[in-house]
């Protein structure tokens, strides 16, 4: 069984909990086990990434403190192997294009269904070597 470490970055606790529960509840098509951790800001995420590595980071764009767009840039600089998926409630084509340009692998507008987020994460996960 492949194990993938996920980090959810969102200032909304309800979104963090939803994500944790979705990955606990949903069964992976590719027999992947997801280890999910959550943080409430980009700064926290960066601090955690100093000590721990993650395969996939799911991040909101609009958060207090460092904005999500800058988090993408910083992660891509320090941990280029980490996949980044953007989850945002303020989705426009412009922000999606910008996030993808900066290195995000996918873009999921909120609200999402469990299938939508799982599908996006699995797409990113299957491309990865087992850690």
């Amino acid at each position, binding site marked *: 069984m492949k194990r993938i470490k996920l980090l959810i970055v969102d200032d909304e606790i309800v979104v963090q909990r939803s994500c944790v529960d979705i990955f606990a509840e949903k069964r992976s098509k590719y027999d992947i086990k997801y280890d999910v951790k959550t943080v409430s800001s980009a700064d926290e995420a960066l601090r955690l990434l100093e000590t721990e590595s993650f395969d996939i980071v799911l991040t909101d764009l609009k958060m207090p403190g460092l904005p999500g767009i800058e988090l993408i840039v910083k992660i891509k600089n320090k941990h280029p192997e980490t996949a980044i998926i953007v989850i945002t409630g303020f989705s426009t084509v412009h922000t999606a294009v910008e996030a993808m340009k900066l290195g995000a692998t996918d873009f999921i*507008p909120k609200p999402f269904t469990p299938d939508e987020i799982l599908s996006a994460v699995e797409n990113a996960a299957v491309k990865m070597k087992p850690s």
Partner: protein
Amino acid sequence: MSKRFDSLKHRLGLLKPYYRSLGFKLFAFISGILILFAVVTAYYAVRVQEEQLIDEVLTGADNTAQAIEYATRTAMLENNRGKIGEIIAHIAGKTEGIEAIRLIDKNGIVKESTAPGDKGRAVPKTEKQCALCHAGEKPRAALARDLRTRITAAQDGRKVISIAHAVYNEEGCSAKCHTAHPTAQRVLGVFDITLSLAGVDSKIAANRRHMMAFYLTITALAAVILFILMRPINALIEGLKAVARGEFDTEIPVFAGDDLGRLSSSLNKIIGKFRGEIEYGNLLMYDAELIGREDEPAENGGKKPNGARRLDGAGPSFPEIYGRISDETHLKIVRSVKLASLGKLSAGIAHEINNPLTAVLSYSSLLLDRIDSPKEKAWLETIVEETKRCRNIVTALLEFSRQTAPEKVPTHINEVVERAVTLLGNQESFHNITIVKNLNPSLPRVKVDRGQIYQVFMNLMINAADAMNNRGALTIESRRNVIKSAVAEDRHFVEVSFSDTGCGIPQENVERLFDPFFTTKDASVGTGLGLSICHGIIKRHNGNIKVASRIGEGSTFTISLPVNGEG
């Protein structure tokens, strides 16, 4: 004669705007005063100077005459004519400006003279220089200096002045003289000295030239100062004239921060506001169908209000139009303000609502996977579906609130129509709809954001299909249009209209059609934001969207976009 007079009158008429201008009047007034002042002062200055110079000459001449008298005294007492002649000739030769010196005796005979051929000539008493004293029966013995002088023109045209200096019978004369003049005789003869005035004349002429140059310089300087002063005034006048001609993009140049500068900037602000009003008025004129179409004869305008259209160029006056459309203006302003504030509000709400919706959608979906009971499954399905509907509304709201400026590129509007028709024509909902395209192939290009306009056309076509219950005819027409105005430049538009054969829209709904969330469709089908979004897009293109509808016959939505894509 009358023809020439008419021609002169005509030419003067052409000059009217110039000689009636404030600048010309000021210039004429100031230069007139300057010239008058110059002429008067120059005249008096020259005259005073001339008198002074002549006075100097005369004083010199009188002194010379006195000197001659003293110098020749001995020779006269001895009656030594030769010596007298010699002395006279010597003085005349040595003193600058002396033309001639002659000695005339009491009988009027020229006894000595430096002028050749003059000696021995009898001068009649009637001659000017003699007549001064000999005019009366008894000759005058003494005369003021001014009366003893006369200015005459010499034979070669030069001006000369002559002065008569009497030789009086002094004590010595009556006793010592060779002829012993009787004591009663006071005047024995006259020295007549003629002096050239060439020096005086040249000095006066030089002075005149200097004065002329001085006054010309002053006048030129006045003209320059006047020009500098008049520049902002002229700019103001020209600017306001341009505004009067209907050129509302006029910007009056501001030359300085003085009173006139402040006046110019204030006027620029007023013109700017007026320009906005006019543009808005033009758009409303268009709405009110006070316009003529280039490719449609006036007689066909059955829907137009009575007498509102004038195609002869003498369109209705601005106040007239404004009066007619004021109600509509009010409605439009209210609508614009309403939409703008709603847009901002929607964006905020949409973002905040998405987070709780994420939880609702996630957990209801997860529960749906776990529940087997058909009844509870149906309930949960409703929750999931309704949450998805909320998501659609929020997405549409975000779309609606997006104030992205259109990226305008020159576009053939027919190509955008064709793209929308190609895409939607294959959709199931259009299978039973006949699409009639009546596109004018010679339309000018318009500067638009193709994606946004494409979105508008798609939206209008989908609405048309819904209104016809996916069965009927959709006519898409493109054409040119022009707004003619007596108060502003004509404005050219490209129009695209979508006419369906659907149910039509009741009049009370037409007014609310572009309001967000207004919909007559089933709640699961429409969000009521489509036409609001279209309205926003078209407004950002400085265009217009309008609707004409008849219950049971169908509706026509018309989009008009400015040809030069200004703004």
